[in-house]
């Protein structure tokens, strides 16, 4: 039976645990080294400082260790990304350009910005949520 909410795929436990770890990572960075966990900024600043071993590069190295460690011990989730190449490229261009122009993405504005009660980040989050919901809903109809 079709229902509005897809309860069969709803995963509250893993969502809460994963989300708490994401928040913990943001807490570790701001308390530990006084920096915001914002991945669009971290990646672009890492590239600008290469080949220097910046804190941004160390953070991304940590993400790589997590990915490879998880893959070895637990196994990385398996899924298919069944999308045309043009859509992958266009989405990447928009995400890259948009996060730089808007100074942040889901982590920097969405998690850290809202957590420190920044109205600027709240405005950014509401805007990219509206864009994301509208676009995903539109593509679901196609």
């Amino acid at each position, binding site marked *: 039976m079709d229902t509005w909410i897809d309860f069969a795929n709803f995963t509250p436990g893993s969502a809460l645990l*994963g989300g708490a770890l994401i928040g913990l990572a943001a807490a570790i960075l701001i308390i530990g080294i006084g920096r915001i966990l914002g991945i669009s900024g971290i990646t672009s600043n890492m590239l600008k400082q290469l080949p220097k071993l910046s*804190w941004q590069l160390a953070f991304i190295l940590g993400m790589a260790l997590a990915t490879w460690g998880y893959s070895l011990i637990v196994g990385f989730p398996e899924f298919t990304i069944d999308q045309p190449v043009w859509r992958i490229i266009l989405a990447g261009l928009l995400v890259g350009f948009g996060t730089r122009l808007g100074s942040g993405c889901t982590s920097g504005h969405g998690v850290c910005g809202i957590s420190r009660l920044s109205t600027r980040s709240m405005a950014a989050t509401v805007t990219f949520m509206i864009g994301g919901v509208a676009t995903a809903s539109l593509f679901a109809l196609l």
Partner: protein
Amino acid sequence: MNQTMTLIISIIGGIVFGIGLIIAQMVDPNKVVAFLRVFDRWDPSLGLVMGAAIAVAMPAFFYVKHRIRNNQAAINGDDIELPTASQITPKLIIGSMLFGIGWGMLGFCPAPALVTALAGYSEAILFLAAMLVGYWVHAKTVKS
């Protein structure tokens, strides 16, 4: 000493963040699209991811604001840097809208795309390459 501590804390933060993204299933763009597609077969899971992340991070930000007021540094000895920009500018809104459109088209935002690319998914690697071109186009065309 300070430099070593900075790198160790950053690596630990990256590990916790990466595992969080995988457990939360944000690395699967189908899961993200099922959250954003609110009017049809909606999977609300990612709302809980964001809620839990904020619930944990918010006390940390209250705590560092307290440290800043008492002229205390971060644990590694560096000044705590909170963003100073507070203006809601056209750049912020247009950029966030373009980001949202790209996010909704495929279901990848930067961090999960990076993890999924590191796991070897060719679509995520292609996405990441296009994202870097997007960074480059921004650097070449927009004055900061």
